[in-house]
Every structure is written in C-alpha cells, then in structure tokens.
C-alpha cells in the first residue's frame, strides 16, 4: 500500500538542468528533463510518470531504466528512492509473438 501523501502544487518555477537532454528510457527515448517535468506537473510515482510519458513501456518493459527513473523522481521529490512505488511487473517477461501465445494448447 502506498504512503499517504498530500499532493500540493509547487510554488517554484520549473528550472532546466544541463543534463536534461540525456536519454533515460532508451526504448521510448524519454529524457531526464521530461521525467523531471512530469514530476513538476504532479506525477509522484513510477506508475504515474510511466503512464504520463511512456517511460518503461517500450520493448524492454523498463528492464534497463526503472532504477534510473526512480532515482530521478526521488531526487526531484527530495526523498529516498526506496520510497518510490514501482509498478508490479506483468507477464510476459520477454516479448512473445501472438502466434506463440495463441498456440498454448489449453483448449485442445
């Protein structure tokens, strides 16, 4: 269960950082700046940032970037990365073609 938080808007302006253009999610080509901006827009955990930007929703399903995204969100929020809720992984763990899925022999 997630921690109880009261969400309020930031007073501060969004300030760009020099490395904002570095790609974080390699599959969907989402940058550090976009993730920071999403947090600024109100996204407060991995699920929300993911659904807002598509980070971790590409071909590799976040296997490469999840830890990075978590630490960027945590840094923006000034909290420990361990406190950031992560999405529950879902099957399939690797890409599976539709014909392979269809061929599961369970209805035979």
């Amino acid at each position, binding site marked *: 269960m997630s921690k109880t938080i009261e969400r309020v808007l930031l007073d501060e302006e969004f300030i760009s950082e020099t*490395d904002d*253009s*570095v*790609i*974080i999610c*390699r599959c969907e080509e989402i940058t*550090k700046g976009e993730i920071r901006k999403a947090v600024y827009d109100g996204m407060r955990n991995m699920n929300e940032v993911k659904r807002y930007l598509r980070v971790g929703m590409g071909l590799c399903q976040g*296997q*490469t*970037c999840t*830890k*990075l995204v978590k630490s960027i969100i945590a840094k923006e929020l000034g909290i420990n*990365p*361990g406190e950031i809720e*992560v999405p*529950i*992984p*879902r*099957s*399939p*763990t*690797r890409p*599976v073609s539709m*014909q*392979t*899925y269809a*061929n*599961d*022999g*369970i209805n035979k």
Partner: protein
Amino acid sequence: MKRYELIVIGAGPAGLSAAIEAASNGMDVIVFDENSKPGGQLLKQIHKFFGSKAHKAKERGFKIGEELLKEARELGVEVVLNAVVIGIFQNKEVNVMLDGQIKHIKANNIIIATGASENVVPFPGWTMPGVIGAGAAQTMMNIHGLKPGNKILMVGSGNVGLVVAYQLIQAGCMVKAIIDAAPRIGGYGVHATKVARMGVPFYLSHTIKVAYGSEAVEGATIVQVDRNWKAIEGSEKKLDVDTICIAVGLSPMSQLASMAGCDMENNPQKGGTVPICNQYNETSISGIYAAGDVSAIEEASSAMIEGRISGTAVSYNQKYIGKSEFVNRFKEYSESLSQLRQGMFSHENKGRIDLTKTEEGYDISQNLLQNGYLSEKEVIKYPGVVSEKVRKRGIVPIIECTQNIPCDPCQTACSMGCIKIGNTITNLPVVDENSNCIGCGMCVASCSGQAIFLVDENYAPGFAAISMPYELYPLPQKGDKGVALDRAGKVLGEAQVIEVKTIKAMDGTNVLTIKVPLEWSMKARFFKY
C-alpha cells in the same frame, strides 16, 4: 496440466545447486533457463573463485558450471534450455515459452533463481553503439570468442569492473582506463592489482562527461567530480577509446517473484527490489523460494549455497528428508555461507569508506584503494611478506594479500606448510619465516587473486629471480627477453624469462620466472615484451 514436484527457474549457480540438492533427496525436478547454454553467469566467469575448498575456491567459474550441470543431469534433473518463463500465475502455475508455444505447467514448489540484471549509468552519448554493459563484454569475449572492442574504457571499479577489465586484456583488448565516481576502488584490492601492474590507470572520483562519435563511440571525455558528485571544471581528460563498458552494479531480477504475488521489499543493501524471504529462502508464499542474486546481490559462491539451502528446505517441507538431516545440513550450509559473508566486503561493510585497519590491525593500503596497487613501503608491512633478513636466505613466497577477503586455497597449496591462514578464511595469509620454500610455485598458481610471487634474491650474484602468475596469450618462452614492470605497470627495465611452469594442477595460471637486477626484487611484478 503437467505438474512437477519442483520447478527451478534459472540454471545458474543458485538454480543448479538447488536442483542438485532437491534431486539428491529424491525430488522430481525440472529446471527452465531462457538461455541456449546452461550455467548462467558462471559460464562467463573464466577467473578462479575465492572462498575455501567447500566453496569450490580456485576453480574457474565456467568449470564449476559444467560440473554442476553434469551433477544435476546425473541425478535425473531435467534441464530445459531456451525455455523462457514468461509468468507465474495463481496456484503455482508457471507459463513457459518453448518451441514456439506457451506451456502451462504446475508445480508443487518453485525456486526462483533468475539472478540479476546490470545497472546502467546515463551520460550524453550512452545510447551510441560501442557503449555496452560489462556483462555484454563477457558474453561476447568469453562465450562467443569476439572482442567487444579494441580500446576500452571501463566505468566502475567494483569486482565486476575489475574482473572484466582483466578478462578484456586476456581477450586481447587494450583497457585504457578504469574510472569510478567513488573516491576509492570498490572491488577486491587483488583484482585491482592484477590490472594495475599491466599498466591500466585508475581514475577515481571521475565520471564520464560525454561519449562522442558519429555512428559509434570514437572517444570519451572523463571529468573529476567533487564530494557532491559535481564535475570540476577544467579537469576533463579525453580518452581515445572505441568501447565504453559499464560496470556499475547489479539489480536482482525479481520480476517473477513480484508477479507471483510474493511480498517484496526495496532494500538497497540487497541491491534493489527483492522478495522478502525467511532464513530458508522461502518467500511469503509457501512453496515459492528465491535463491541467489534474485534475493540479494552477492557472489556466485554464496548463490550456490543459497541454492543448496532452498533445495534442502523444500526437500524437508515435502518430507523427502527428516528433521535431523535437515537441521544438520542447514547448519552446515549456514556456516559455509557466513564464512563468505565476512571481511571488509561483507554486507554490513558494504559502502563503508571509513575502514582503515584490517581485522588483525594492519593498516589498509590507501594507495591500493586509490591507485589500484600497493606501494613498496606498504607491502612489507603485511604478514605475507617476510622480512629482508629471511628474503636474503633464498627463495620465499611473497604474499601481497592485504585485505580481509574470504579465501584460503594458498594455505593448502603449500606442501611445506609455509603459509597459514587458520580457520577464519578472511584472515590475511601469514608466511612462516622458518619454513623451507622449495619453489614449486603451487601457491602462486593457487591464488585466485594472483597476489603471490616467489622471490629468490640468491638467484645469481646481483640478480633476483621472480616467479609470477601469468594468464595471457601467447605464453612467453624460456630465454625470451622483455621488460619487467612494477606494481603500477611502469617499465623498470630489461628482464629475461628463465622458467615457465605450466602443469595441469595450475589450471591455466602459468608460473613465469624472470631474472631481474637484485634491486628490483621487491619491485618487479609483471613481464611484457
């Protein structure tokens, strides 16, 4: 639906060990692995392991993998390769993608041993071809016989970074530098000294600023960072590299445990999100276990024991072994595991930078932590290095092992009893000043850290003979002339090969003896043409 008594997911060190343990107790076990070859990361580990004999110390990882596979198959374990477990569902149903089909298979018990995945570090240019994970480098060179690149920058000085840097050199690549944002080397000192004496420079408190190139990496700029990890302007260095290898730690690959519904925790000490397990590696779901890196990032040696523990526990829970047998085995495995979990690289000491003394009270070499090698002044203080008086008598082992790491093969390697460690395998080895070294070189070859040398200051008037471990190709021949290098990889001057020992028991660690001027007896530690 097909049902097994035990499904093990992952045929790496933990998975195979778990399968062996359970099968040896009479369980019907099937192991699924997504790779085309079994052994997991063991397959890529071509270096000798640490630990004691029970931990298969001084054996090379890939050979351990082969042995485990053989043992498992002999016990009737079915090891299925190219089998991707795509999900774990209700009622312990495992779905496996195999031969273009999804197979629904049930298990009474599941051991998840899926290992870890590599962490990454982003920097401008990190998506370019030529930037790879350290594991990718190992896969290419040690499995497929392909050099990952020619001129390499290694990012990360933990054990993976150090070991892979060494393996890259063995594969014929040039390692241009090892950098780490931390102010000290993260891995074992002995792994660092191996590459330092071959001339690889360390840049600590350095990070990569940019990798440049048009289609692929053509170079990199590194920069020094201050205590707050901010780049120090003007400290940039350009490196001529074609490959950047990232070795910045591992994360448990715990997706299947989470998918199965196991209670999870985020534990930085364990490397990330892991299933919460009891002492028998059982998760919050009865009958689902997690062993090896998937439950906490450690070494392959500990993964094997964790596999054993979960295999014993499942055998006991399913009534294949009785209570007393279980209690005894659990005790044996726990003790073995706790041996590996001691010393300055243990879980509790992870990330500590305030350690200044060994458990015996010796100063920990700061030079080693910062540059990757021991200074001549420091090295003589350790118990593996005999006094000048003793050295003058003739050939003697010089053990430059200066950190408390869990390893003891050297004490049994010496048939003359010259080397002592005792029962606490993290103790520093002590060379007995009264023992008679016969110069057999077995200790040199047995040291997984390649930290043992034989020094003979009486070799010839004005000359010393130095024997050292050598694992490069081509192997120098007796009579060859080249140069001696010091611990920092700096050329001292001319040296000649006077003997090359390469017997089966040395298992690929050849012992090369070179003749050098007497004054280099405590300086010369490597040879090249």
